[in-house]
């Protein structure tokens, strides 16, 4: 009887050995996208497959994950698991996730399909193809899981439509479109390395731990199911980076520039996660500041020490991210409080106990810079004048976020940066965003900035109600303060009904 092949040989037979040298067409025609970025690959055979996963093993393990996941989701639905969350304010984190992140998973699926086709190396092709299927699975599991909440809470009903239109959702949308419209090497550096390796823990861990702490076992389950794929994605990201850096010295400055750009774009995107962690979880896991220290400063520090041997340094402006950690979540939440009338999830002020937690976690910033405005807003709300900003915000041309970031030497001063290109002025929230624009201005002058598009008349009309209508955002139901929401009314009613059931 023949001896079974060992893991390495089996993997090679089923993947690498299926590649061939084309003879009908020149390689440059089959793979037209791999030179224009300036990246030089001498030998694709030197690609190291970190996980030697063949397709049969892939389907087996992925099917196992799916079976377990859908069993949990079924059980969650049957047992009215939505009633076990800490309180209905938590559900707003899921609204942000479904409208902001799930469509991005779909974009990642498209992107990996593209690069899987664009790369000539078999090892890279296999890894990208698996990742493309993973990302599709992620969006599907997210939609299935969160659809249960759609039966009971507002704001979930039109996530795809909203992702393409609503002002704050242009932030994740433009992030992925920037990557998808780059070449294959930039795409994979941006997403596999910068997003899925350097920063992934700052997206998934907070949402999933937040879900666990707040009784949302359905989200925990899909989160950990997805995250088990992320381990493979992370190793792809690391392998890609090392491969490019080892193949040719000319690649080093190109890759460094991409690392700088995508660290900054990803970091800005994570402002949404910062506010979610510190403000949207009735039971908090850890502060944004703690998460940044653990997952970026320590973990990321180790990574970049590793990469130093290839000539790579820490991403530009990383020190700004460290300085901003005392302010980021508060400034972002205050922005959504300002624009709560135009957000498809509820906003609210923290209570006294929550403010004590914030003060303890942020001893150098909270009481001095943020508590005063919160106390003012609370007083206004009690007097019947809940504050909403009557004007539309100025947006950064690159990250498309309102210009809410302040100077770390003076947190009362907004950072203003500008440049001119072909006679037009462009504005930025930071040096990081300005640098990105100045390197590829042609790309960013065509940005679809939500506020400007509203003023150009492309968003349903000139008034806020018309724009909300165009968003499919139901005024008075999906938006505004949690205190007056249907979500809260329902929640109190359900909890009272179920506690009455318990006492009979």
């Amino acid at each position, binding site marked *: 009887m023949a001896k079974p092949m060992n893991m390495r040989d089996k993997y090679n037979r089923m993947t690498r050995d299926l590649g061939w040298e084309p003879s009908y067409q020149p390689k440059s025609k089959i793979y037209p996208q791999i030179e224009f970025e300036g990246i030089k690959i001498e030998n694709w055979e030197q690609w190291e497959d970190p996980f030697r996963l063949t397709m049969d093993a892939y389907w087996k393990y992925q099917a196992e994950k799916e079976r377990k996941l859908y069993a949990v989701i079924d059980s969650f639905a049957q047992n009215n698991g939505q009633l076990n969350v800490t309180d209905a304010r938590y559900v707003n984190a899921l609204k942000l996730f479904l409208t902001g992140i799930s469509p991005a998973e779909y974009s990642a699926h498209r992107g990996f399909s593209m690069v899987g086709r664009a790369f000539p190396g078999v090892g890279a092709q296999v890894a990208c193809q698996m990742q493309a299927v993973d990302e599709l699975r992620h969006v599907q599991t997210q939609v299935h899981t969160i659809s249960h909440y759609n039966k009971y809470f507002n704001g979930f009903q039109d996530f795809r439509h909203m992702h393409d239109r609503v002002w704050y959702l242009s932030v994740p949308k433009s992030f992925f479109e920037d990557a998808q419209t780059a070449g294959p090497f930039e795409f994979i550096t941006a997403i596999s390395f910068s997003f899925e390796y350097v920063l992934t823990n700052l997206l998934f861990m907070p949402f999933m731990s937040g879900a666990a702490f707040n009784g949302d076992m359905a989200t925990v389950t899909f989160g950990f199911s997805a995250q088990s794929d992320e381990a493979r994605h992370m190793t792809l990201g690391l392998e890609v980076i090392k491969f490019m850096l080892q193949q040719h010295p000319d690649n080093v400055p190109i890759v460094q520039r991409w690392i700088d750009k995508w660290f900054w774009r990803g970091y800005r995107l994570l402002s949404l996660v910062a506010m979610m962690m510190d403000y949207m979880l009735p039971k908090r896991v850890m502060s944004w500041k703690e998460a940044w220290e653990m997952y970026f400063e320590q973990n990321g520090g180790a990574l970049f020490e590793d990469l130093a041997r290839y000539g790579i340094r820490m991403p530009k402006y990383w020190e700004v991210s460290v300085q901003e950690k005392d302010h980021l979540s508060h*400034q972002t939440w205050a922005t959504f409080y300002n624009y709560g009338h135009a957000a498809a999830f509820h906003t609210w002020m923290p209570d006294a106990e929550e403010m004590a937690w914030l003060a303890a976690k942020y001893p150098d910033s909270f009481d001095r810079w943020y508590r005063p405005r919160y106390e003012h807003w609370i007083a206004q709300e009690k007097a019947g004048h809940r504050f909403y900003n009557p004007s539309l915000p*100025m947006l950064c041309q690159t990250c498309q976020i309102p210009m809410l970031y302040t100077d770390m030497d003076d947190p009362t001063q907004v950072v203003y940066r500008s440049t001119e290109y072909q006679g037009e002025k462009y504005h930025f929230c930071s040096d990081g965003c300005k640098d990105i624009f100045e390197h590829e201005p042609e790309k960013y002058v065509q940005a679809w900035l939500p506020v400007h598009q509203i003023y150009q008349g492309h968003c349903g009309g000139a008034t806020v109600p018309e724009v909300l209508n165009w968003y499919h955002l139901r005024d008075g139901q999906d938006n505004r303060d949690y205190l007056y929401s249907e979500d809260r009314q329902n929640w109190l009613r359900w909890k009272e009904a179920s506690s009455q059931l318990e006492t009979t």
Partner: protein
Amino acid sequence: MSVKALYDYPIVPKDTVEQFHGNQLVFIGWDQHLMFCSPIALPLPPALPFAALVEQVLTDAYGQHPDFTRIDWSRVEWQLDGQPFTPNPVAGLRDNGIGHKSVIRFRTPGLNGIAGSGS
């Protein structure tokens, strides 16, 4: 430096002034009043007199702040596109040198936001 592309990359700025129906974009920020989370963006007629900007536009935008009614407009410090600026109240925005996508900042000495926190 330029974007890398496989073809002639078209340059199509989305926010040229012609696309705003006769208005121009103006950005305004009130320093140290971060109760308003960021500077604001407004489509304004280029001929709008600066006095009208102050009396109508700024009042609508910032009137809710307790500091607003306390502003001594004669002591306000203005900045236009990063430079100190003395507006002419009767002249229009354009004639004051405020162009499309210009940034106006104003500072109200002595008024530093809610409880002096810059909010």
